[in-house]
């Protein structure tokens, strides 16, 4: 997957990649005039190929959440086209199919829980599809296992930690067997332990072949991404591999982003002439770079 493939992913050129992906093609979107606080999107083009982990980074209010709501047709573009595996989000006849293909997990775990037990919550989506009981049971078991919550079936969701609630929300999305998981700041309300739990699940799902569109302001949460976009005031300000974004760290501040703490330490060490090679972003690799 060299530069060529990345270019293809963004422009969607070539018939093979055109159909099987989440594709934003020159999207513009604006809220009504009285929604002045929310920014429009301007000429946003990006793609998530099956199995890829794509990060969209940006400050609060850059348009990230708007982008998430455009993926499954909750919002429709003013111009341009959003397609998921070839389904146009404006095609109302296929909206159910669209929503099955794309699972969305939002920032606030409490807003996404609909039932009074963990298993009922996960079963909610499959039940609405009218699936047979055994099929629902199988999907619930599979989804809870995938997020490491087998054994939590009877728990009341309000007794779960924040990290567990977010894992439950992910299980609810997985029970629909989506091709893509769209994550909207899934860790920003969690404590460090909960954040690690959720990021571990995301890594595992990515390794298992689920395409992931991860929208966040937290660079440290997407260190495993294959590709990153920066959204600044509704426009794509950067696209490329994460390593290139980290090299462009002097631009991060202008976009309202910052390096994780260990990345800032790496810069401070470099300024003192302590060489550490490529930018290290987590404590363990920093220690290895420093002390072997």
């Amino acid at each position, binding site marked *: 997957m060299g530069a060529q493939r990345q270019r293809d992913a963004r422009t969607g050129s070539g018939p093979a990649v055109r159909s099987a992906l989440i594709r934003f093609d020159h999207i513009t979107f604006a809220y009504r005039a009285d929604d*002045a606080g929310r920014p429009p999107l301007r000429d946003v083009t990006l793609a998530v190929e099956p199995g890829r982990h794509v990060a969209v980074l940006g400050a609060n*209010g850059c348009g990230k959440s708007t982008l998430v709501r455009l993926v499954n047709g909750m919002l429709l573009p003013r111009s341009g086209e959003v397609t998921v595996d070839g389904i146009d989000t404006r095609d109302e006849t296929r909206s159910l199919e669209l929503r099955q293909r794309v699972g969305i997990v939002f920032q606030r775990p409490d807003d996404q829980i609909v039932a009074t037990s963990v298993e009922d919550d996960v079963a909610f989506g499959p039940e609405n599809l009218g699936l047979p009981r055994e099929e629902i049971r199988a999907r619930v078991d599979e989804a809870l296992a995938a997020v490491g919550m087998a054994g939590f079936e009877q728990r009341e969701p309000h007794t779960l930690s924040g990290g567990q609630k977010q894992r439950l929300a992910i299980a609810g999305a997985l029970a629909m067997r989506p091709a893509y998981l769209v994550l909207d*700041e899934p860790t*920003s309300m969690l404590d460090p332990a909960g954040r690690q739990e959720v990021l571990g699940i995301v890594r595992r799902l990515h390794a298992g072949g689920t395409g992931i569109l991860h929208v966040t302001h937290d660079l440290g949460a997407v260190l495993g991404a294959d590709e990153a976009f920066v959204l600044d005031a509704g426009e794509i300000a950067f696209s490329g591999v994460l390593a290139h974004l980290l090299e462009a760290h002097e631009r991060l501040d202008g976009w309202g982003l910052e390096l994780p703490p260990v990345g800032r330490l790496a810069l401070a060490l470099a300024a003192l002439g302590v060489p550490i090679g490529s930018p290290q972003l987590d404590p363990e690799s920093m220690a290895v770079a420093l*002390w072997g």
Partner: protein
Amino acid sequence: MGLRVDAASFAFDTGGPTALSALEAVSLSLEPGRLVLVVGETGSGKSTLLRVAAGLLKPASGTVTADGEPLGGRGARGAVGLVFQDAESQLFAETVLQDVAFGPANLGLSADTAREQAGLALERVGLDPVAYGGRSPFHLSGGEARRVAIAGVLAMRPRYLLFDEPTAGLDARGRRAVREIVAAERQRGGVVVVSHSAEEFFDDADEVLMLSDGRTVFDGAPRELLAAPDAFEAAGLRAPEVLRVIELGRKHGLVIRPASLGSEAVAEAIEAAGGRS
């Protein structure tokens, strides 16, 4: 003087979705001008402690006083202000100014005085009352909405301010703005900040109170924690990432003693300890 929680205990409330964690004989002492950082993982009792300190929860045993007056009594009325986690979700009025003026009006001040205090509170959180006062609180960015919610508490002019996870969910700019507000407010009174990401307020704090399972497991100056970073793990907490680098350095036999948790200070300490091995 000061806000004092003395040996407060609170039993776990198992019923309902607002279940709070237990506290066991936890004390907190806040003098004017000081910043106390309370850290602990989810369920450690941090939020319970804040509610007790704000007088919203009556402890099963122990006492809470503000400047010597028991909370709940007439003398301590309005002494303590609590900014809840996710405070912006409680914004409700038609305009920003009305929302911020609600608190002081509710304390019995005249509408004019309440509006005046609301305008001054907006200035204190860095929002121009003329530009923002007439706007809907529902069409603000996340950072702006959080600041409006903080202004709503400031407008009641409490002597002691308590913040529950004030930077959660905010981006780099938003967090910086909140840190600046907290730093400015601690000059006016005393401030307690509860946070699960310790690094955010670590260098500003005069004192760090670490809770685990409702008990105090560390209470002291931040620099003591810089010298003993394993205290975090001992309390079942993930240490700030930069502290974990220092700890790993120790395992290589290096003595790294930063003056603060700031990147420059830690980099200097690593260099002084011998840099790369």
